[in-house]
């Protein structure tokens, strides 16, 4: 019904007839728009007649009119041509009526929605702007009115496609960035799940190119960019994108290929960055002094740095920390070459250091003696702003003889007394399957500041290694959590946590 009869191609444009006969339906000169409207209105008002089968039905009338206009035996070829045109025109008119009716139904539904929906459009838009991106898409599919509201730029100021990573490709991201335009403030892409490999993601680096369009008009307003496991992403490809994001303050990249030599290049134009989080796939190359200096010069406002899985040694780390005077949060987990000597460099800052969080989880060669030195400086009153220290390690710490210890000698009791506002985390598991990374320590630190010290030192005994549930050693009593609200003793609480882990493993 939507298209003219394919077997009867219309060769002459409609309304151009040279032959005066009923088939050509010539338009009279005095036949204006109101006449047409009146004729159609009269036709549509026949609705009270039966539609089919009876002689008086509209269907029978259609048949009779068409039979009269199209004689059973065709005359000249010209007559036949006009008849073809007439039939095509009839089909077109029927199709137009069908489409108009559909449009009318939709308009009516939209009108009904807008009268029954009690919120003003500006309020609806504001609510939509607070939805996560997946919910926004679902709401926009409800009706035309919602779709119009969901098209507003404000609704796309915070794009988070991490919850629908498997359904999103480059095209979707590009459309959303275009919709956001100058309102774009934060962008989160990819799959957060740590198990996700770069090859499983539908997104590649090209999804970010709209940020650079129009001299970086859209990217220039972006404040936060989080990228998780995007394919083919490295410093070289990210650099032009980030050069358009001049106002970026928060950059997080999980799954970056070999970024160390190009850290300076990566942050060259992002001079306002305050929070930097980079986690890499493979082993990174060594960072050069010049690259390090450039990196430090590029980011004078950096207050939080997380470099996970980097081949950073203590000398580089010392320079890095000295280069960033405002650092409050440092996370250098899974760095295989950090022994802890850089702590001595930190001590030069002493009381004035703004450091609040220091996380060195699973740093394989981290030394007990260096951590002890740092804790002693805390007891001496240095680092007055520090709130969280985490030196948990599945392999324990390196002790003086080059051996590994699961029972380091830390002055826990003194720390509890003198620095009760500090959370010190030192969880040592012998099995890597019971990795300490399960515990949401930073969140705990924010939400439960009363939990002052967590330090469980666990060493496996021969009998325990079979059941995979290490119980606390003798030293844990003196160093376990001291939550004042807990009625159970520290030994019991340690046992409970061990049991929970055992259940998890099952």
């Amino acid at each position, binding site marked *: 019904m939507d298209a003219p009869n394919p077997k009867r191609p219309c060769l002459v444009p409609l309304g151009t007839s040279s032959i005066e006969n009923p088939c050509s339906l010539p338009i009279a000169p005095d036949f204006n728009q109101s006449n047409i409207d009146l004729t159609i209105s009269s036709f549509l008002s026949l609705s009270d007649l039966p539609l089919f089968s009876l002689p008086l039905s509209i269907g029978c009338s259609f048949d009779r009119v068409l039979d009269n206009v199209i004689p059973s035996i065709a005359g000249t070829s010209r007559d036949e041509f006009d008849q073809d045109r007439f039939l095509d025109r009839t089909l077109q008119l029927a199709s137009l009526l069908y489409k108009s009716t559909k449009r009318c139904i939709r308009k009516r539904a939209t009108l009904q929605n807008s009268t*029954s929906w*009690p*919120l*003003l459009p500006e*309020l609806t838009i*504001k*609510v939509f702007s*607070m*939805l*996560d991106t997946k*919910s926004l898409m679902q*709401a926009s599919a*409800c009706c035309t009115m*919602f779709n119009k509201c969901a098209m507003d730029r404000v609704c796309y100021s915070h794009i988070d496609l991490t919850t629908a990573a498997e359904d999103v490709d480059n095209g979707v991201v590009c459309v959303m960035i275009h919709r956001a335009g100058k309102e774009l403030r934060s962008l989160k892409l990819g799959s957060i799940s740590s198990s996700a490999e770069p090859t499983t993601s539908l997104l590649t680096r090209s999804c970010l190119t709209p940020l650079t369009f129009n001299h970086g008009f859209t990217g220039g307003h972006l404040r936060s960019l989080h990228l998780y496991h995007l394919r083919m992403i490295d410093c070289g490809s990210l650099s032009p994108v980030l050069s358009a994001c001049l106002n970026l303050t928060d950059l997080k990249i999980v799954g970056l290929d070999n970024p160390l030599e190009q850290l300076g290049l990566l942050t060259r134009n992002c001079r306002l960055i305050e929070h930097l989080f980079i986690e890499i796939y493979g082993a990174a190359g060594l960072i050069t002094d010049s690259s390090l200096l450039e990196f430090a010069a590029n980011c004078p406002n950096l207050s939080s740095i997380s470099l996970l899985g980097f081949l950073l040694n203590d000398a580089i780390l010392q320079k890095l920390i000295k280069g960033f005077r405002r650092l409050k949060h440092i996370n250098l987990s899974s760095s295989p070459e950090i022994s802890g000597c850089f702590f001595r460099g930190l001590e030069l800052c002493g009381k004035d250091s703004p450091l609040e969080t220091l996380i060195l989880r699973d740093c394989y060669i981290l030394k007990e003696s260096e951590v002890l030195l740092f804790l002693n400086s805390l007891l001496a009153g240095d680092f007055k702003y520090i709130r969280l220290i985490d030196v948990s390690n599945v392999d324990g710490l390196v002790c003086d003889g080059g051996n590994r210890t699961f029972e380091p000698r830390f002055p826990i009791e003194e720390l509890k007394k003198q620095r009760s506002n500090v959370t010190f985390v030192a969880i040592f598991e012998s099995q890597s399957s019971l990795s300490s990374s399960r515990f949401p320590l930073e969140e705990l630190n924010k939400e439960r500041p009363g939990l002052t010290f967590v330090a469980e030192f666990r060493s496996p005994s021969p009998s325990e290694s079979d059941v995979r549930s290490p119980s606390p050693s003798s030293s844990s009593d003196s160093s376990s959590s001291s939550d004042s609200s807990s009625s159970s003793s520290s030994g019991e609480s340690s046992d409970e946590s061990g049991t929970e882990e055992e259940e998890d493993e099952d």
Partner: protein
Amino acid sequence: MSTKKIMLKSSDGKMFEIEEETARQCQTIAHMIEAECTDNVIPVSNVTSEILEMVIEYCNKHHVDAANPCSDEDLKKWDKEFMEKDQYTIFHLMNAAYDLHIKSLLALAYQTVADMVNDNKWAFE
């Protein structure tokens, strides 16, 4: 110490008494008071008595002073309970907050609706 009272008249003609200082949380009413274009009765033409009563309850709770101390924690808890209403009541509260320019109530309503949609607890009828 007696504080000045004003009357609010809902769209269905019901009258509500409220302290002037409390009513000043509604910027629309505050402007009317400052412009002295009220005879102590302010018509709130597009808010029903049921919704206006809730708005006044909210304003009374959020008018924190020496006589009515309330911690942020308590207010947050109260707000959460206050917004445990059916969706159309929340919509009408939102419209009222928009008309009366009560920023905190409007923000609370926005967040409530957004959270409910995000958590799939909302029916778009």
